[in-house]
């Protein structure tokens, strides 16, 4: 029996395809990562199906690429060595919203759009990254460590326990979901760690190379009763960052982020052709966006004490920061942005990163806020060198946990139909990652071959150890081969 | 569970097998009390553990070693003797442990030394020399006994009979006469008549401390009889080691209470504090000095009165009758501080390790004689702390501390002043230091 026949027999014709058009759809994504065609696409709805396919792949040494989202930006799901794309988007059940324990358990195919709507109906939200694509898998985005816009929760990661099918085909539950018979157990899956090893860590940042997660428990929060969104125009980024060092450390605020004029314009422009150019030049160089919220009890009083402290600090220590409930010159911004921060990008609209030109190469890394302006300067320098207009670069700065670190992201827009633009961005990106890595930028999520190779060459002992661990979980090297250092 | 008879008698090491076997290795004996932990520097108060680093040198190691010795699982060796004796018995371990538990660590260490001597293995050779000096010449230095009163300068006139008996001690008699002289002058200035023993002899501190309990007992009995004969109501000393010996260890080895001595044992710091607060002594002279006070171990942690105890221990380790343990709470901490800060011009600044957390100077109880490098090292550690708080002078209340610190300062070539409490008080006494 051929592989094709075996697979078809295993999953049935409804779940199988090797139609060239279908295969083509999985061979590229919105990144500049070169295309890679799978040989087959299989859709799975249950963990048992996933298990069967993985066992099959193992037996025949066929590469497997798990896909859980409807949109991809980093090339993680482009097969490098053919094989089977395992489409998990149908595993999109919201199993339970557990109010008592502030927990939700969802299938890996549940999208941001789906989850945020379901949660909102019950008065809940989930801490979110900035404006995720509505068709992205929530579980996968958190496995891939997308950085949330909320800086105040000390317990950081929303991910709790999970179910995974290992590359060897075994179904396994991590953390406290590992008890026999879960979820029919007193254990609710609230602890991500263990058993024995912290398996969940090995699955994070793995781009599907360590196993296939089928569902996960995540933390949810109550929707605040009161939200106030505040803005400050920023010209001196270092000064604004000092302000953030000061206020985020004393736990002021919920969502807190900075967008440069290009990125903010990209997000808020209503009519693109009419508004974007104007906004790009009229918005301040940077805008600080800070949300303060009142919770379930005495919400006004919470807002009040935060406002008092903010006012005092601004008056006594940061008089140059004009923090207000509006951005001068841009009426209605608060009303527009606040709901956006709690939901993914609208499904019908062009994704914000694609609005300027269609293509967007994101360059992002973790760093200390105190190094941000240095890196911004460096990128501008390199952009100039490659003829990329500085005025076209989108920048997003996301403080992390009281501003102990930050996620710094540069969005390099380009027209994918223009070879010269593509080349220019490729060259700029290629040099930028090299230079920035050398200057201490932490590319903790290396996407794309170039960056990945640079990172893993540099982190030699980490790479060696990672490969040893991988060889245990994926002895036949079937899971998304060619990604990371595998 | 049957009960077992137990007592705090240090001459029977078996009395402390329970304590040794219940050490939980928390190192409360080694660390500064966590409430007072100053940070990554000055974090420990056991000089032995800090210097030698192996667990075996901390009390938590010594408890295990002691147990093994007593249970016949370990033989004596040079290393073992060093572990037992490279230690000033400063009491930091005892107080540290007793913050949370009911274990008699100090007594166990004393008992192990007594056992080592009983077994013919201890003390260290240097200690044997000192023992000989004491038994033959009645001082630890082996100096001529007749020179013991040479410290008496012109103008110092002890009374033939008085309520207060000043017990000078070997160090102030022979090596640091300035302390004895200052003490005498302070007493004069306050109008306090004092007498001396007609034939003062070594208190026997080192004898007891190294485990030579029989010799120490002999000395103790002689000394107590001599004091009783004078009719003194108060025995005053300017030496912390002597203070502890008289107040705590004499009763301990004679199986009596401190209260049964028949006279009160008082240190100069306590006495002067009383005089100042009563108005009998005026400290009016300005002394412009930024200083820090070093708590001598024997005056602080180890100074609470002794009450003998025996009883039974049963289930859960509960003892009957209940035992009020000596936890170092009521050491002489505040009186010297009150006196020093009452002197005009004095800026009293505290070191990170103070009171019951003080880091021993390293000299006491025979340690310097047998382990001079260790003693120097400990003093240097303490002097770093002094420097840290920007003090110009370190003041203590024991000639052995003064001796060790002075030597360390001399070796370092620093200009830090090393003073005894008595000297500072004397310089603060005006021409009419008397209250009346």
């Amino acid at each position, binding site marked *: 029996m051929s592989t094709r026949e075996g697979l078809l027999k295993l999953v049935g014709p409804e779940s199988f395809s090797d139609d060239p058009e279908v295969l083509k759809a999985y061979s590229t994504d919105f990144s500049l990562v070169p295309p890679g065609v799978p040989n087959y696409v299989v859709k799975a709805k249950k963990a048992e199906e996933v298990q069967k396919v993985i066992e099959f792949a193992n037996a025949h040494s066929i590469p497997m690429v798990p896909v859980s989202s409807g949109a991809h930006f980093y090339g993680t799901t482009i097969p490098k060595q053919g094989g089977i794309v395992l489409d998990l988007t149908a595993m999109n059940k919201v199993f339970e919203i557990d109010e008592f324990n502030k927990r939700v358990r969802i299938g890996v195919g549940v999208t941001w759009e789906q989850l945020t709507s379901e949660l909102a109906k019950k008065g809940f939200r989930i801490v979110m990254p900035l404006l995720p694509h509505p068709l992205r898998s929530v579980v996968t985005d958190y496995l891939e460590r997308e950085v949330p816009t909320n800086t105040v929760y000390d317990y950081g990661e929303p991910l709790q326990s999970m179910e995974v099918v290992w590359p060897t085909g075994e179904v396994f539950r991590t953390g406290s979901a590992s008890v026999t018979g879960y979820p029919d157990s007193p254990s609710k899956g609230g602890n991500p760690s263990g058993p024995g*090893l912290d398996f969940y860590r090995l699955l994070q940042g793995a781009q599907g190379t360590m196993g296939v997660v089928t569902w996960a428990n995540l933390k949810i929060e109550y929707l605040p009763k009161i939200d106030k969104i505040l803005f400050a125009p920023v010209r001196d980024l270092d000064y604004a960052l000092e302000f953030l060092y000061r206020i985020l450390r004393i736990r002021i605020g919920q969502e807190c982020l900075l967008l440069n004029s290009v990125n903010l314009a990209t997000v808020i422009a209503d009519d693109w052709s009419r508004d974007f150019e104007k906004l790009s030049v009229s918005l301040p160089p940077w805008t600080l966006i800070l949300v303060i919220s009142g*919770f379930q009890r005495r919400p006004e009083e919470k807002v009040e004490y935060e406002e008092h402290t903010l006012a005092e600090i601004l008056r006594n220590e940061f008089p140059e920061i004009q923090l207000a409930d509006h951005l001068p010159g841009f009426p209605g911004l608060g009303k527009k942005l606040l709901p956006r921060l709690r939901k993914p990008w609208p499904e019908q609209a062009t994704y914000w990163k694609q609005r300027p030109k269609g293509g967007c190469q994101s360059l992002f890394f973790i760093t200390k806020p105190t190094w941000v302006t240095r890196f911004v300067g460096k990128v501008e320098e390199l952009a100039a060198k490659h003829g990329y207009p500085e005025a076209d670069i989108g920048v997003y700065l996301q403080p992390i946990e009281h501003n102990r670190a930050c996620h710094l992201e540069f969005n390099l827009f380009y027209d994918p139909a223009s070879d010269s633009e593509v080349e220019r961005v490729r060259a700029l990106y290629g040099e930028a990652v090299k230079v920035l890595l050398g200057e201490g930028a932490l590319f903790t999520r290396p996407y794309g071959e170039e960056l990945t190779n640079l990172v893993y060459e540099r982190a030699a002992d980490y790479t060696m150890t990672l490969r040893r661990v991988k060889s245990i979980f994926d002895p036949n090297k079937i899971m998304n081969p060619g990604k990371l250092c595998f | 569970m049957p009960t077992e008879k137990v007592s705090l008698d240090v001459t029977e090491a078996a009395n402390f097998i329970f304590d040794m076997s219940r050490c939980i290795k928390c190192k409360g004996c080694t660390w500064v009390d966590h409430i007072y932990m100053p940070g990554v520097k000055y974090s420990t108060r056991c000089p032995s553990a800090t210097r030698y680093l192996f667990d075996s040198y901390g009390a938590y190691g010594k408890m295990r070693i002691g147990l093994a010795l007593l249970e016949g699982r370990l033989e004596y060796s040079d290393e073992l003797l060093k572990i037992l004796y490279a230690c000033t018995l400063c009491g930091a371990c005892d107080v540290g442990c007793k913050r949370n538990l009911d274990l008699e660590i100090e007594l166990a260490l004393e008992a192990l030394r007594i056992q080592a001597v009983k077994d013919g293995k201890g003390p260290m050779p240097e200690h044997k020399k000192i023992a000989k000096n004491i038994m033959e010449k009645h001082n630890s230095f082996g100096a001529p006994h007749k020179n013991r009163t040479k410290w008496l300068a012109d103008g110092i006139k002890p009374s033939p009979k008085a309520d207060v008996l000043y017990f000078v001690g070997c160090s102030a008699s022979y090596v640091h006469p300035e302390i004895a002289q200052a003490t005498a002058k302070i007493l004069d200035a306050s109008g306090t008549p004092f007498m001396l023993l007609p034939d003062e002899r070594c208190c026997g501190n080192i004898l007891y401390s190294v485990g030579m309990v029989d010799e120490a007992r002999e000395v103790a009995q002689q000394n107590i009889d001599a004091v009783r004969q004078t009719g003194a109501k108060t025995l005053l000393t300017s030496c912390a080691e002597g203070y502890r010996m008289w107040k705590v260890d004499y009763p301990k080895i004679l199986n009596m209470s401190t209260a049964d001595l028949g006279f009160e044992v008082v240190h100069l710091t306590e006495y002067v504090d009383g005089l100042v607060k009563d108005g009998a002594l005026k400290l009016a002279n300005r002394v412009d000095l930024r200083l820090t006070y070093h708590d001598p171990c024997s005056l602080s942690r180890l100074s609470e009165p002794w009450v003998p105890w025996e009883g039974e221990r049963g289930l859960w380790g509960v003892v009957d009758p209940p035992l009020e343990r000596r936890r170092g709470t009521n050491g002489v901490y505040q009186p010297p501080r009150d006196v020093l800060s009452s002197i005009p011009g004095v800026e009293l600044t505290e070191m990170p390790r103070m009171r019951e957390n003080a880091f021993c100077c390293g000299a006491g109880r025979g340690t310097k004689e047998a382990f001079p490098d260790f003693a120097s090292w400990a003093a240097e550690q303490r002097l770093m702390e002094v420097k840290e708080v920007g003090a110009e002078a370190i003041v203590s209340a024991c000639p052995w501390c003064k001796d060790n610190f002075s030597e360390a300062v001399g070796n370092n070539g620093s200009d830090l002043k090393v003073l005894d409490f008595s000297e500072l008080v004397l310089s603060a006494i005006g021409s009419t230091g008397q209250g009346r």
Partner: protein
Amino acid sequence: MAISKEAYSVLESIVGPEYISADPAICEGYRAGPGGYECGLGYERVMTRVPGCVVMPRTTEEVQRIVKVCNRYGIPYVPYSTGFYGARSHPHVSDALLIDLKRMDDFEIDDKHLYAVVGSGVVYSQLQEEAMKRGMYIIVGGGGSQVSAIANMIGDGWSPLSYRIGLPHRRILGTELVLPDGELVRLGSLAFQDDPFWGEGPGPDLRGLLRGFTGHRGFLGIVTRMAIKLLPFQPERLEPTGISPHTTLQLPTNRVKWINFTMPSKDSMQQAMVEMAKAEIGGAVTKVPIFWRAIARAGSKEEFWELWSKETEETIRDFHVLRVLLIGFTSEEQLEYEERVLMDIIGELGGEARRTRPTDESWFKNADSAGMWLMCGGYVSVDYVIETVEHAIPHGENYAKLKRNYTPPLMPDYGDPGWFQSFELGHQGYSEFLVYWDPSENTDGVDQFYLETSKENIRKRFYTSLLGSHQPLYLTGPAFGPNYHKWLLEVKEEFDPNHVCHPPVPLAHDAFVERAEWMKPLKDWEGPAIADEP
């Protein structure tokens, strides 16, 4: 076979003669018991050994070289920071090399970015003080101020303050790990550069090897350096006051305050925790077992027993005290706000505030953890589980029921179901069950109870911290995951092919069950082949 002369001389050349010894007295000082955590029990008696040699390295490089020598010469070794964890942190085979890490006490702090970098020899007490001096704080784990920060961060690492701050797993940043075969791997930002401020990646996160829910007790290598997250606190000083044994931190009550509440029922306590978490207030909240109150009041062991003997099942059952910590992170006004919200909640549930001392000696500096041994001399936590509040309560109740069969030799606690609290602002819950015994009694029942709790967890589908090396691996393995033990053992085999890193852990408890006569009757699962100790 004792460490060979050749091996000894190589080790000596690595650290210097002052920092190595095979002297019997030195080695005896490192004995696990008979006193200590989980000591005075069968496991300690049967499984632990005095080391054959002790070495004290100063740097990661020295540790690496030592470990490679052990691999070369077949010398079993155990990493050791303070040894306070008790039996399981000590050698389990004869003539092992004990690698005492106390000299690795380097310390750096980045105040602005809220982290400290420590060596294995730095203890929580030191770290907490350095943090608090600068307006930050950490969790001092239940083990106490005296434990190595690194050892606790990869072993346990929670306290009532985890209500706000959460799991230690999230607080581990850049780390240096010497693998069992001597290879060095740097995790997080240290993989790329020299500043250890970040812990993730690159890519899959190898911090997953450092621990599971609880730690490895040293069988998967040695962590020599770690950057640890510090958390923002408030600016007022917690002033140390008092003289031993009554030392305590005076709390600036406008910014830090404990409040004790009497609640009408256990349900209302649980509800209070849920409401607090819902309102997102508080720095800590926990049920107070009546036991703690007795310990706090007792000035001695005898006083404790006098107090404790007055308690009954009724008094235990009817004692519902909730203890809440408020921290004014933002401002005084914030603390006042939280207090109003708290009073609303307590009022709704029928609770009442009690007079509460404005001091703390237990959770900021955890100076009194050693007091756990005051009552009886023997103590172990037979479980300390982070799951949800819903899990926490029945978990403790189950243990209380099971415990009756083993009391004595366990200390009578009148059915106390242990303590529980809320963690991570209500996303998690915590339960801990502590047991005590007199080591002078026959303690076989304690060993058996310990194992029975594992079986009970499996039967009732509770999660448990006592996985990995803490219980028989072949008992818990099939029941959790399932078969987590298979992966654990494969990882172990991959990185410790010469079996020199703390043998026979993680199969030590499996070995114990085979070797101890009184444990054999409890074995009703398939175990691995266990070699006798030569």
